[in-house]
């Protein structure tokens, strides 16, 4: 038996105190297999030991929430017996080490989380953060991540319908790849992971187990250093073909009533799936590893328990239903093996070659996992109003902003994703939120991912509130009623006090905003230790929001539709330039207070806009990065119709990033009624111009042609990625 030395304990990412706790929970020294199991189950990635205490405070309930956090994904009721199931999850560390496979398996993992609950995945989104475009590795990472996402999602036949991309030097050594999956199921046919009862067969389905991904969860719970690329063997390899078969086979099995519980083998593979299922079912599980389908020879128990080979599931069946299930998996040419049984011992017992290699209380891996209230230092939010040169030419600045890496068109990315497969994508990438129709109905699900990391760095609380508010706004802007969110909390090392403050304040901000907007958190994921050589990323609590459109024919898009429409600005503008895109791109400064969030105004203005869309309004865009003029330019480019503006022409008004604002365009005859309605609803609204022509013109600020704006907007990405092709004309 391997001696458990202090070095070995440290190599497993466990502290001396944690090791002492393991010994006291077991009443003896752990075996090597047990040490490995504790190491992954107690990792930050699996145990949420630094965040659990705070995540408890998030609002997770609403009448339409069918399943909140704690399962593989969250579930909401969308009427008519339909349920939407969704979650967002990070695959940051693997994607930096090996971008194609890291991103691909991130997509595969989140899809499994959703279809393991009985849903057919119907849409994918992804929130990506890369380093400075000038950094020598950025291009390679963008290229690899985008092809990895496409390679997996396209083969699965699930449309990738949108997302977001930022570049910032703080991600140079630690990119973020957050993938979100939305699935559709019948509300009365949701599958959970509680392995209830004793003596039920535990079955292994999907791919064979290999040596890939061993200790992935532990790797994802540590900082990076210069030699991080040596960790490549800990990155899993994806096989979307097998996942597609697994999806179809699981849905076929789920149409029977043979399943008691099912969970995908994600991080920490066989270990976490068996331990979590036993924990939730208040039972025990006994596994016989000799029966695990293996891809490589002579695998040890340690390797099998810690492998993160992809495209695998663990299920507990009703006794006697094994043959029926096996027939389905054989049809789909997948491995199927009964590898154990549930017990009433509340212990996880692992046998290999006739020996018991692990025998531990299930609760030691879950409830008894360490829980830290790590110390934090409250830092004062960035404040003050930045000074700017008010004489800079407005339209030149606009063109520069439209072509900036964070603001330019993402067409180069989304054209590599099949966004129209399944023939239900009614709003394609490029709008405020993607919309997919609920198959066979007129209902639609609107989906968005949002966070503005520079705001979160300036003020973690306000920035987190803003992320939720922007998700709410993007859903409202297409006409969807915002229903729930999933959060993907990406932060640095929680053992640093200033980072821990970002985490605490960030979770607090999300909670505050979600409560005020009736927008509960139903699933999520934390990714900490996003640091390289001691330098942390900007705090990035990404929010994935989902909303419901009762009728996809009553939906708004950002494109101007007609010449001569009145352009109306909704919401109050004070000219918040702190932390703005204008400040960074034109003045080269990242300073000042981030725009304040007024949740009551967000709600009021959002409800107002949604009602208008329900009554027939078709052109809406939310105002976010870049402010009013950028929003108008985007609407003009999308519709190939210019705008003549008659409003204030100062930089603060045109480029300020005040929140809770929208731009609408309506036919002249409806404008007056709209303004009156706004007044009676207490919503600030102002007529600021008319659509028409082929340029953006503003009295006192000059004009710029749409052709010139498009060149800047569409040109940056292909040029940066070295493509020689011109973007299509339309």
């Amino acid at each position, binding site marked *: 038996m391997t001696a458990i030395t202090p070095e070995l304990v440290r190599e497993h990412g466990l502290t001396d105190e944690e090791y002492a706790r393991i010994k006291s929970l077991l009443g003896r020294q752990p075996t090597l297999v047990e040490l490995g199991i504790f190491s992954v189950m107690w990792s930050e990635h699996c145990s949420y030991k630094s965040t659990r205490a705070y995540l408890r405070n998030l609002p997770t309930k609403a009448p339409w929430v069918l399943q909140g956090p704690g399962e593989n994904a969250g579930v909401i009721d969308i009427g008519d017996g339909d349920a939407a199931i969704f979650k967002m999850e990070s695959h940051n560390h693997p994607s930096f080490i090996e971008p194609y496979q890291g991103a691909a398996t991130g997509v595969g993992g989140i899809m499994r989380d959703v279809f393991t609950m009985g849903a057919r995945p119907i849409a994918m989104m992804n929130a990506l953060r890369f380093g400075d475009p000038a950094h020598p590795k950025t291009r390679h990472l963008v290229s690899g991540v985008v092809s990895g996402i496409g390679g997996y999602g396209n*083969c699965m036949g699930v449309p990738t319908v949108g997302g977001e991309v930022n570049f910032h030097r703080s991600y140079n050594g630690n990119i973020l790849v957050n993938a979100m999956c939305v699935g559709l199921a019948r509300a009365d046919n949701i599958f959970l992971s509680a392995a209830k009862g004793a003596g039920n067969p535990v079955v292994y389905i999907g791919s064979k187990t290999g040596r890939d991904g061993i200790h992935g969860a532990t790797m994802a719970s540590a900082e990076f250093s210069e030699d991080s690329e040596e960790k490549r063997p800990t990155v899993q390899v994806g096989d979307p*073909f097998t996942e597609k*078969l697994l999806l179809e086979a699981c849905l076929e099995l789920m149409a029977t009533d043979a399943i008691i519980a099912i969970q995908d083998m994600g991080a920490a593979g066989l270990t976490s799936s068996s331990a979590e299922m036993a924990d939730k079912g208040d039972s025990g599980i006994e596994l016989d590893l000799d029966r695990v389908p293996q891809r490589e020879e002579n695998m040890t128990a340690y390797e099998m328990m810690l492998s993160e080979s992809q495209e695998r599931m663990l299920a507990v069946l009703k006794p006697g239903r094994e043959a029926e299930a096996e027939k389905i998996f054989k049809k*789909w040419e997948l491995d199927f093996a009964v590898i154990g049984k549930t017990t009433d011992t509340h212990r996880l017992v692992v046998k290999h070659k006739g020996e018991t290699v692990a025998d531990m209380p299930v609760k030691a891996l879950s409830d008894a996992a360490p829980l830290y209230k790590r110390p934090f230092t409250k830092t004062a939010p960035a404040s003050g109003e930045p000074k700017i040169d008010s004489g800079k030419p407005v339209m030149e600045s606009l063109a520069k902003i439209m072509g900036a890496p964070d603001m330019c068109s993402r067409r180069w990315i989304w054209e*590599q994703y099949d966004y*129209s497969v399944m023939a239900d994508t009614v709003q394609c990438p490029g709008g405020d939120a993607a919309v997919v129709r609920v198959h066979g109905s007129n209902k639609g699900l609107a989906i968005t991912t949002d966070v503005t990391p520079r705001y979160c760095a300036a003020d973690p609380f306000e920035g987190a509130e803003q992320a939720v508010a922007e998700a709410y706004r993007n859903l409202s802007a297409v006409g969807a009623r915002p229903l729930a969110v999933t959060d993907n909390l990406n932060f640095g090392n929680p053992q640093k006090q200033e980072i821990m403050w970002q985490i605490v304040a960030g979770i607090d901000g999300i909670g505050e905003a979600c409560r005020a907007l009736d927008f509960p958190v139903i699933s999520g994921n934390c990714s900490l230790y996003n640091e390289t050589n001691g330098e942390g990323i900007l705090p990035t609590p990404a929010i994935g929001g989902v909303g419901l459109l009762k009728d996809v024919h009553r939906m708004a898009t950002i494109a101007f539709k007609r010449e001569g429409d009145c352009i109306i600005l909704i919401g109050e503008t004070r000219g918040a330039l702190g932390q703005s895109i204008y400040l960074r791109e034109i003045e080269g400064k990242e300073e000042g207070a981030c725009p304040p969030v007024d949740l009551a105004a967000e709600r009021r203005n959002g409800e107002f806009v949604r009602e208008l869309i329900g009554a027939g309004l078709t052109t809406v865009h939310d105002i976010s990065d870049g402010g009013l003029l950028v929003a108008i330019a985007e609407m003009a480019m999308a519709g190939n119709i210019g705008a003549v503006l008659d409003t204030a022409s100062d930089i603060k008004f045109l480029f300020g990033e005040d929140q809770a604002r929208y731009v609408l365009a309506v036919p002249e005859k409806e404008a007056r009624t709209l303004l009156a309605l706004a007044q009676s609803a207490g919503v600030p609204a102002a007529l600021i111009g008319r659509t028409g022509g082929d340029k953006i013109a503003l009295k006192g600020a000059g004009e710029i042609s749409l052709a010139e704006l498009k060149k800047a907007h569409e040109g940056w990405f292909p040029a940066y990625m070295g*493509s020689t*092709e011109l973007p299509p004309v339309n």
Partner: protein
Amino acid sequence: MKSAVIVFPASNCDRDAAVALEHFTGEKPAMVWHADTELPSVDLVVLPGGFSYGDYLRCGAMASQSHIMREVKAHAEKGGAVLGICNGFQVLTESHLLPGALMRNANLKFVCRPVALDVTETQSGFTRKYESGQRVTFPVAHGDGNYFADDETLDRLEGEGRVAFRYAQGDNPNGSSRNIAGILNEKRNVLGLMPHPERVIDPLLGGTDGTALFQSLIEALE
């Protein structure tokens, strides 16, 4: 018109094809599994888009060797209609039901976007309801749509009026020879094309330019 959709492992546009067929014919198509050895009696067989067998070998190469393809070939030889969309087109070239091959896109990237097409041949059961030279927009979504054949074959295809669809000048998304997007076999009962007509039959989803293709089939086969 009775129809069947062949389902290979990792076909992923099988449902879209079935929805379109049911929409136009009022009847659900038979969904036929790749391992089946019999084809039901139908007028039209659709080979749908997707990544059959993961496309880990040449796209469509594994599918061309499946049990059911023997039956599909027999159906075509008897004059039955076969429509191969995207991966289905790749299966048709690999099965030698159509000449040529589909190579990696010229820029080596997957491409998904609406493209402008010209209907260059209306003398077929697939295209008779289009106007000759009509400009239509279908989406493409593929990584291997770069149609290639030797000059002799291309000349013959053109000479015999077997190029049914071409990418509009300047809108070729994959570098295919002579802007070819879709071709017919000699007997004109087999059509393979990279763009997806089944995704443009609903105004809500970006147009209805695919409708005439299904209406042509109904008119020709009923």
